[in-house]
């Protein structure tokens, strides 16, 4: 343990020296009784607990690992048993000295819900996560330093609607990497992009290539559909409900329902066609009408008479 601590100290000191180099050139000779350079201030003591429940699929787990990688101030924990009450999470946060929490709540290895919470006082938000692509499965060209501080880019609608501005504050506190965090890097080289489209929040991660706005995507990609905002952390009254939210089970059912009538419709149509054919088997040519039934000769006379009248 002692060794580890030492290493960390050394690293931070070298970083500090590097920053100073960019500002002022240090003199070559220094006196031994000179005061030691003080550690840079690490004010923002935000820590985020990132973990999942049993029932998350491999893809969800990879997404979780991506997010942990993005956030140097994140702490991971063991998978939680689904039987436990979610209120236990607050205690877990307290135990691991975290004041924010991202919980990956998986159901049946299929649906993923994400909880963003400000522990222990709240608020907390429950999201449904859709169209997940982890950084490993996306073959994107961008890359950034592990633990570098990202810019957080928000859409205009994060200012317009109160529910989104609450989400924005939450995202800023969770995804914003604290300045001078020992595991972070002293450069800003990526942008986390949050935009609202179709009542969902689309998450994208870009690398800053140069300062004129050239960017390249890094990954991961996912879409958050907010379901509810609670006043407390994993508890309390509901502040907001998404009126457009449809549960994934229901969407699946609707999709299935669409297919359900295909077979019966087909059957009905075939039957109808058959009966139609039976009723009028020779309706194709108009001449055949004459031979259908009755006396042919009389009909022919009738037709001739008609033609004469017409002339």
């Amino acid at each position, binding site marked *: 343990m002692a060794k580890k601590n030492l290493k960390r100290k050394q690293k931070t000191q070298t970083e500090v020296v590097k920053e100073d180099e960019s500002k002022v050139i240090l003199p070559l000779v220094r006196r031994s009784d000179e005061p030691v350079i003080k550690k840079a201030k690490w004010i923002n003591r935000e820590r985020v607990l990132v973990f999942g429940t049993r029932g998350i699929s491999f893809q969800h787990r990879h997404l979780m690992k991506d997010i942990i990688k993005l956030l140097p101030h994140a702490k991971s924990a063991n998978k939680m048993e689904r039987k436990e009450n979610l209120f236990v999470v607050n205690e877990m946060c307290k135990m691991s000295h975290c004041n924010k929490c991202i919980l990956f709540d998986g159901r049946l290895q299929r649906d993923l819900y994400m909880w963003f919470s400000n522990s222990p006082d709240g*608020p907390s938000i429950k999201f449904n996560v859709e169209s997940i692509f982890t950084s490993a499965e996306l073959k994107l060209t961008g890359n950034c330093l592990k633990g570098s501080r990202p810019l957080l880019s928000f859409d205009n609608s994060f200012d317009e609607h109160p529910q989104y501005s609450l989400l924005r504050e939450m995202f800023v506190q969770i995804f914003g990497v604290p300045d001078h965090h020992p595991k972070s890097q002293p450069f800003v080289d990526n*942008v986390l992009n949050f935009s609202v489209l179709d009542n969902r929040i689309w998450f994208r991660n870009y690398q800053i290539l140069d300062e004129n706005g050239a960017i390249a995507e890094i990954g991961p990609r996912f879409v958050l559909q907010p379901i509810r905002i609670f006043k407390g952390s994993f508890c309390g009254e509901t502040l907001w409900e998404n009126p457009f939210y449809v549960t994934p089970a229901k969407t699946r059912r609707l999709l299935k329902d669409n297919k359900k009538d295909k077979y019966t419709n087909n059957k009905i149509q075939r039957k109808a066609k058959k009966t139609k054919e039976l009723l009028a088997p020779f309706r194709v040519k108009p001449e055949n009408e004459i031979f259908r039934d009755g006396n042919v000769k009389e009909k022919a006379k009738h037709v001739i008479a008609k033609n004469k009248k017409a002339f």
Partner: protein
Amino acid sequence: MTIVMSSDVDSEEELLELYASGKLKPGLNIPVEEDKVFINNVKAMKEAIASFQSSLPWSERLDIVAEVAPMAPELSMEITEQQQFLKAGKIDEVALNDFKRETMFHRQAQTAVMRGVELLRKHNIATHRPEDYFAEMFKSDEHMQKVRHAPLQRKTSLEQTEKVRRIRKEKKLAKEKQVAAIQAKHKQKRDFNENIKKFRKGLRNDLDFLETDSGKKNKKKDDGGGGGEKKKNLSRAQHKRKGKDTKYGFGGKKRGMKENTTESTFGGSGKSNFKGKNKGRINKNKRMSSKK
């Protein structure tokens, strides 16, 4: 008539009572569900924001509100189109179109970068990593190597398949040509021999065929060319059918086609049923007689 049902299961007596009192009328009765009221407590939300908002300076937060950036003029038409769609409520038009959606996010991030860089400079935060600064990256070198090789691999594999296809086609053509040449040669020889035989027997008096042979050949070649053009006029499906017919045969029983029959063994008409490899070869008796 529609009536709001008090409970899900109404007993017959209750229904009868309702009917007697005139609340229920004959016809189709459908239970009407009340619209769900969605909670949207704006005041409480604002309070919640105020309660947990951090008072840290911008250099700790690094958040930017950015609209979609303007782009090159040739693309600006498209942008206005997108915004019109959004304004008209046709969100699906953008949300379901991968390219439109991703460009929108991309441009939003671009504005954020341009604004952010200015602010970062103001706060004296480094954006550029020096060349000699090495640290662990978000994505491993292994993964980046894969990414770099992916398009290359795709290209080489495409080239490979193209090459194989070309060679196969060339081989097929060459074989066809060879067979055609052999057959033409045999036919020429056969005709020549027949003519000589006729001349010997006195059926023919002139020896023109010795000179005009090459002329005939040329004519025949021209005819062949015309046939080729006809082939080209075939529709795609017909062409395919024809190809398959030549490859697998067309119609009838295939079994026993190559077996000997009485006809084949005892000469008969002299025409053989099967398509042998050596189509140009003629009956041995004929050959022997022509040699004399």
